[in-house]
């Protein structure tokens, strides 16, 4: 199961498993985002390369307008995936508990 929704504080919350079958849903949501984007990943349990592709594509688009994505509440496993992928050098990342 995967959900993506807009929180009251303006951040975007991802929950569940962002795999290849859910990447289209995530991309469709993020394609409508403009300006500075804060993604709360505190409830994201799993991400595969399809999900990474969605984040990268959106980040590049938003960076083109001087904005970008900030990834917050990032858990250990997801952070490991970001580190292996070099995303820790591309995104502003706030680990869970900070």
């Amino acid at each position, binding site marked *: 199961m995967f959900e993506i929704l807009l929180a009251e504080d303006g951040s975007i919350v991802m929950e569940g*498993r962002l*795999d*290849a*079958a859910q990447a289209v849903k995530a991309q469709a949501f993020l394609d409508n985002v403009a300006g500075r984007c804060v993604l709360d990943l505190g409830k994201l349990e*799993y991400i*595969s*390369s*399809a999900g*990474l*592709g*969605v984040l*990268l*594509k959106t*980040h*590049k688009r938003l*960076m083109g307008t001087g904005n970008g994505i900030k990834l917050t509440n990032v858990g250990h*496993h997801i952070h490991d*995936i970001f580190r*292996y*992928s*070099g995303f820790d*050098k*591309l995104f502003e990342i706030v680990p869970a508990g900070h």
Partner: protein
Amino acid sequence: MQRKCKRDINELKNIVKMTESVFQEMGLPAGLRNVVDLATEELFVNMVTYNTETNEDILIEMVPHAVGLEVRLTDYDVERFDPTEVVPVDVDAPLEERTPGGLGLYLVMKMVDSIHYEYRNRQSKITFIVDRK
């Protein structure tokens, strides 16, 4: 445990259920789940996406191994494609040079403890092992 999977990414939810059952039966540490889920998904999706000349199901097997878990994916009636020979992604490249593709197999190679490719009689078989340590 084994499962024949349709060539459809919507099979991923069934593969996750299979992995869940295998972990329960074998008493494997939960910390290994994400590595097994990720490697299985990436290899399965790669077969579905690029081996489009066949309609045969893809066989996934998960069996106990001396050090943890062995997972095999077999694709039938396909051309040879060895994922272990794929050129690694430059993860140090700046944002403007990064593209969404290519990360999946790179992550598999990075995260599993060993991986082996075999091609025989138009069958492509990938075996990986994840160490319970």
